[in-house]
């Protein structure tokens, strides 16, 4: 059926083109909505579509991520390079948003590559391969567990950093507030006069 495989090729090529124009954003707060993204990224070009990626498999509270389709590849590249080199904030600070070029595996509704045939076979228990296959299955589960442990660790590290930054920010504010207050109520001027120090507000 040449027409259907041609069509499949065409669909796949169109999809690849779409992927090349799409940007993968993550580290998004749940407060970021389509409208926020459109407004924020409007400066980089025309935002055609925004699709949020739901989390169905990671059992931890992870930040949101989205696929943002731009008008052309150039705009997508400009966006990514800007966000990689300069921190960009959305709906909060200081954790920056991360942008990467999208890959076809990120799309749930991707078309199959044309001319790909997936072979399926049942491996008989008497087959020598059976044992190895079982081992591979175990390996898959083990790798998954290791991966989840890494994610958990990373999320803990992120919490630590956030807390640390919050503390630092708080103490900074306290410091500034303190300085403000003594300037306001005249303590500084009094002390300056007492010590004979000239205060210069420039």
């Amino acid at each position, binding site marked *: 059926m040449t027409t259907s495989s041609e069509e499949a090729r065409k669909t796949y090529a169109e999809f690849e083109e779409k992927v090349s124009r799409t940007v993968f954003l993550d580290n998004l707060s749940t407060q970021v909505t389509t409208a926020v993204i459109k407004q924020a990224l409007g400066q980089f070009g025309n935002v055609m579509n925004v699709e949020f990626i739901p989390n169905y498999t990671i059992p931890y509270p992870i930040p949101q991520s989205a696929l943002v389709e731009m008008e052309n590849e150039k705009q997508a590249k400009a966006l990514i390079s800007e966000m990689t080199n300069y921190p960009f904030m959305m709906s909060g600070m*200081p954790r920056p948003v991360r942008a990467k070029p999208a890959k076809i595996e990120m799309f749930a509704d991707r078309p199959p590559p044309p001319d790909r045939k997936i072979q399926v076979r049942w491996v008989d228990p008497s087959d020598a391969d059976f044992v190895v296959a079982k081992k591979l299955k175990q*390996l898959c589960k083990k790798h998954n567990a290791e991966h989840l442990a890494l994610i958990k660790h990373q999320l803990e590290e992120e919490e630590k950093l956030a807390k640390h930054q919050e503390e630092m920010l708080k103490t900074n504010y306290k410091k500034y507030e303190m300085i403000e207050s003594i300037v306001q109520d005249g303590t500084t001027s009094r002390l300056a006069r007492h010590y004979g120090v000239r205060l210069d507000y420039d």
Partner: protein
Amino acid sequence: MSHLENPDSPDFPFHWGEKGEFLEDKYVQFYKSFTYYDEEYFLYDSVYLYVTCQDIPFIGKILEIWEQQSHDRKVKILWFFRPNEIVNYLGDQVPLEREIFLASGNGLGLCNVNPLEAIAGKCRVICTSKDQRNQQPSTQELENAEFIFFRTFDVVNFTISDVMPDKISGVNVKYLLNQKKDQEAFLTKSKTSTSVAEDRSQKKLRLTDKSTDPSINLLTNKTVTGLKELRIECGEESDVALKKLELGKWAKYDELQLKKDPNPVRKDTVIDHTSDASRSQFLDRRKWFQHSWEAQLEAANQGGRLVLLGNLDPSITSQEIEDIMYKVFQQQCHVKVIQQATFQIHNYGQAYVIFKAKDRAEQAVKAINGGCLMLSQERPLVSSIGMLKIPAKASTLVGHLPTYRGRFQVQREEMICAVSTSHGSQPNTMEYDLALEWFLLQDKYLLTQKLLHESQLKERIYFRNHLKSK
């Protein structure tokens, strides 16, 4: 609340169309059409209406459209009943696939006035009644339709009839039957969905070539009469052939789940946006379709029909998995691959498979886990029943810090706005330094992830070599 969802904002995607009557005394302007979210709706169009407390939308016909003095936009909707809503009155009759019933009679549940914004989208409903006034639909139109109707349900007597009355709710019934312009719309709008569906049904024909199952022959008779003769036994798993005729996202939603309900659903109590003080209930239509997938997942999980497949090729697609499931288990199922985002392992793909029945799902899992189903590139499948527990989304992101109010800072509102507005951070701010710390942390994670992947890859190669050398 985004500015797109505020009906008074100029960007609200709504425009009035052709005007109708104008009632002086009540200052009400009737209309014959309007455009909403880039779709043009006319009188007597069939539409979906979404209710926040339910996942399945209602289907209705627009009878009247008007704007009140207060600039509230209203529509009067004549309801369609789904078979599961009138299950007690069907008796022994089994409704056709995609059949819905037009409400008739004069009583509660016939029609309702709703805010126009409750409309979630157009619905392709075709009337297949043999009534003289009804324009008979063509094969193509029938295939493209999402629902069909040829019977009415009287809301006063609770009876079903296939005789079309003269008037329903004061409207001449000929307007409620097939209209020429509808049929044109059906032909053009659904080109993409039919071509995709046809591709897939052709693919399935290849796979099932060896099967001698007589029901498969129905595939070749995709005609009008073929459609009418196929009936679903509600609750049992449907035949492969029946499922081929499901086109469009909504038709695929769920098989009829018959609920034993003593009364037909009282529609008048359901959609009540007007009583809502804030207008924040207006739903983004795109979100609603995605929501339906989540609802499917939830429903399948509840019913024990959800299976998680692992150790897949990360580039595999939903269609390929559906084909594989069909080939191996002769089971029609609905698959969604898990998108490869930040936290997915690059080498392992996963997918959720929704089976038609619990026992089939369990059988499949048992077979896959007990035996060894090998996909190309030496990937033995791994499977498990049910969904992992996903925690609720946090309301703020870890790392987004609250703004501090200095005692002497008066303009707090602007400050908050400045922080939450999206912006690139300038190098001379503290925010910039903090952001750099985040960059550093993320780079560390990427590096660790890379090391883990490399060591995992080595393990896999080691075992795969064992596989090849026998």
